[in-house]
């Protein structure tokens, strides 16, 4: 399975995201913001960082990068896309996910290990978790406060689209402790904390982050098997 990791000017965590996908067993393809070609990847990670220097708003310029035009179309067609931190901000700016990420309520950049409770365990990026599972991965953001209108928040809850919530402390004031959400189809996931920093004992607080990357491989293997079965019946 080929997982693409996009590098924008100002991306920081593209290297770690690529490494995490590789450790999970993926063949990693590095994608460049200026190249609209996805080079045949089966899934895409939008990494953390400060794309285009956070000019205007976090993710606002990246959303119009040539590679994003292709990714937006492909995501609407079912391509698994995971946005981490700045990647989550880009997905919201691209309207692939509802809501917006705003300045942390306390105005401080927050960098620490953070407990989350996984809720939507059926997405392309979380199927290796169980609903209710508690995981520990690093959070590091200055603009991670998730906001949306009440109607949108209620819909996210009702439709089971909250991927993870902060527990044992909300690091940025996010409404309803939301750390990550998914689209209706479950192929697009945005998460503020950084699973790619929790994949190795040497550098991470846990190995919990690896589940996001093994999940997409599982989802793709399932889709591929379905395709083969469908093909065999023809």
């Amino acid at each position, binding site marked *: 399975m080929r997982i693409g990791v996009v590098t924008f000017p100002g991306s920081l965590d593209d290297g770690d995201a690529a490494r995490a996908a590789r450790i999970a067993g993926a063949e990693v393809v590095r994608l460049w913001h200026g190249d609209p070609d996805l080079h045949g990847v089966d899934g895409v990670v939008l990494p953390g960082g400060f794309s285009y220097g956070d000019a*205007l*708003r976090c993710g*606002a310029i990246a959303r*119009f990068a040539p590679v994003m035009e292709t990714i937006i179309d492909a995501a609407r067609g079912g391509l698994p896309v995971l946005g981490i931190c700045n990647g989550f901000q880009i997905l*919201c*700016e691209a309207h692939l996910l*509802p*809501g*917006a990420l*705003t*300045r*942390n*309520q*306390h*105005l401080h950049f927050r960098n620490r290990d953070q407990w989350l409770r996984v809720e939507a365990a059926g997405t392309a990026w979380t199927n290796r978790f169980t609903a209710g599972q508690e995981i520990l991965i690093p959070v590091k953001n200055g603009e991670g406060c998730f*906001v*949306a*209108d009440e109607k949108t928040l209620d819909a996210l809850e009702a439709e089971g689209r909250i991927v993870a919530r902060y527990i044992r402390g909300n690091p940025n*004031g996010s409404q309803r402790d939301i750390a990550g959400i998914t689209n209706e189809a479950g192929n697009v996931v945005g998460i503020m904390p950084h699973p790619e920093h929790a994949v190795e004992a040497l550098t991470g607080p846990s190995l919990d982050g690896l589940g996001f990357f093994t999940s997409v491989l599982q989802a793709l293997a399932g889709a591929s098997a379905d395709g083969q079965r469908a093909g065999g019946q023809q």
Partner: protein
Amino acid sequence: MARVVVDVMLKPEILDPQGQAVAKALPRLGVTDVSSVRIGRRIEIDFAGEPDLDRAREIADKLLANPVIEDFEVRIVEAAAAEVA
């Protein structure tokens, strides 16, 4: 020069922690009669030809403002007046 000014503000229901921080700092200046501060962004767009408000609105809606959390207003300003200001 044809200048359009776009003012972008957080929607009233969106918390503005920067504005709150400024408001909390005002008593240190001896200012005690301010009840609220909200911080927005002013963007000046210079058109090569005639100022085009519809075009400016399109730019604001697609890029300059995030309609999920922000409102915007566009207006034409006299370049000369803007220079003086």
